[in-house]
């Protein structure tokens, strides 16, 4: 014969008999939809990120190349200018040229 304690334990073990499903608050579904929308908008695809990075690198390369080309021209032009100045003695007071 079961003791009162054993009967109580068995009854407790069966306390979930006939349990119904719990339902969340109706607002939960709206919050979930909002969170999913937020995640859709904020994520860039890897393809977009790579295109942006490649474009920036290309621009930096072109910029550097153009600057280098201009530097060469300036130096070349400067040397020609100095030679002409010397040849025709256009700087009699020997002011220091840039």
């Amino acid at each position, binding site marked *: 014969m079961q003791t009162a304690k054993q009967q109580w*334990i068995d009854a407790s073990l069966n306390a979930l008999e006939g*349990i119904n499903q719990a339902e969340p608050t109706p607002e939960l579904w709206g919050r*979930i939809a909002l969170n999913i929308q937020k995640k859709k908008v904020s994520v860039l695809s890897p393809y977009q990120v790579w295109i942006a990075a490649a474009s920036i690198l290309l621009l930096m390369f072109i910029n550097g190349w153009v600057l280098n080309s201009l530097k060469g021209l300036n130096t070349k032009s400067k040397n020609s200018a100095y030679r002409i100045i010397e040849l025709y003695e256009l700087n009699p007071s020997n002011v220091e040229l840039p």
Partner: protein
Amino acid sequence: MVYNTALSYVQNNEDAEEVTQDVFIELHRSLDSFKEESSLKTWICRIAINKSLDYLKYRNRKKRMGILSDIFKKDSLEPAHHIADFEHPGVKFENKEKAKILFKAINTLPEAQKTAFILAKVEGLGNLQISEIMNRHVGAIESLLSRAKENLKRELGGFYKE
């Protein structure tokens, strides 16, 4: 089903809603990678269980950190992180008090036994369905349920008042 499962693990409405949100966001993210090796319901259930267990681990970690910094409330000796008695809203009225105690006891079960018991008793699933969800043989599920019941009986014995 997702909310009901989460609620049985975390035993708190707000936490269960947070877990449910995480599950649906994960489902939305991973739907493309669903390979149809199992049914959609099984897959969803697995995600719900994993997210619930992850949340429990996170909550326990937070509790341990809290215990280190502030063990007791200022005006009483009650531990600051005492979890309130959980009343599942779907339990029959005549079983509410015993169900409260049972859920406390369920908290003490190891993860696998807890999962098997919740799926069987709260979700009302058969052993075959549980074996698909947990990816174990039916025999292993029967063993888990048997051990869960033994552990719960032992734990419930501690709550009995003469």
